[in-house]
């Protein structure tokens, strides 16, 4: 039991750490670069934490939602200078985290995606569709919440989708690297870390 709790704690820390790190990169690397190109724009053209959000919710379901809720709320709180009150910000953080769930169900209802019944596993292309719709819904939510226009909808959608694509590719390459590394050191510490 203690082992399970320990693993859960590591998982939550890893998810939160990844979300925060990518958020830091998005704010401190992407935003300055896009400001040089496009000037002051609402939204981030490569919003990497969106990838963590979608992958965590796809993989862990409601657990992923709960694990990311504190960091998502924290993130929205930091946007408080955008003329919104805290209740609205918390509601928006929750709704933003719900976007992948809603997208998944809309696409399933429209029969665009057909997950395998036992595991609800998706084809990676279907997962991309979820990411695309989720980015769009999220952008609608943010532009309504922060009183922005159509240009911002496009900007945020592109940012969310690109962020998801980059994280999806990075996750694929990381898993590939771990497989090779485990193959190289069958009895080393990597074998323990990369058993998944």
């Amino acid at each position, binding site marked *: 039991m203690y*082992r399970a709790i320990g693993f859960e704690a590591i998982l939550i820390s890893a998810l939160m750490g990844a979300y925060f790190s990518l958020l830091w990169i998005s704010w401190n690397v992407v935003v300055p670069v896009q400001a040089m190109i496009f000037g002051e724009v609402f939204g981030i053209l490569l919003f990497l934490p969106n990838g963590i959000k979608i992958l965590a919710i796809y*993989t*862990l379901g409601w657990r992923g939602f709960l694990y990311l809720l504190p960091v998502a709320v924290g993130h929205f709180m930091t946007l408080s200078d955008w003329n919104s009150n805290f209740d609205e910000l918390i509601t928006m953080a929750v709704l933003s985290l719900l976007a992948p769930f809603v997208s998944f169900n809309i696409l399933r209802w429209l029969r665009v995606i057909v997950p395998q019944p036992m595991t609800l*596993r998706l*084809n990676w292309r279907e997962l991309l569709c979820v990411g695309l719709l989720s980015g769009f819904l999220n952008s609608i939510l943010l532009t309504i919440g922060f009183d922005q226009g159509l240009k911002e909808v496009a900007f945020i959608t592109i940012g969310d989708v690109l962020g998801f694509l980059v994280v999806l590719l990075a*996750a694929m390459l990381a*898993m590939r690297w771990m497989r090779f590394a485990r193959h190289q050191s069958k009895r080393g510490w990597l074998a323990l870390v990369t058993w*998944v």
Partner: protein
Amino acid sequence: MDVTLLKSFAKLRLTLLQMEKEIGLGEISAAESAVICAAALIVDDRGRVELASLMSQEPLAAMSRSTFFRAIKSLGERQLLVKESDSKVSDYILKA
């Protein structure tokens, strides 16, 4: 780790593995890699590889016939080494 978490990670892993294969980053075995290398050494200007000369290449000489043909079949399925359609002898086209 509880079973639900294990299932969750298995789901993600399978999706990413499928993505890896479909975007062309799937792994090739040591035998397939040896066949590709040997084919690259003897390929002519038109990309054609003769099966007889491929089999006689040094890295493949020690390989069992079943492993060799399994590798050829697998590379064919992945469109890396495809059989020439209008050839009476067994020639292949290297597309890797």
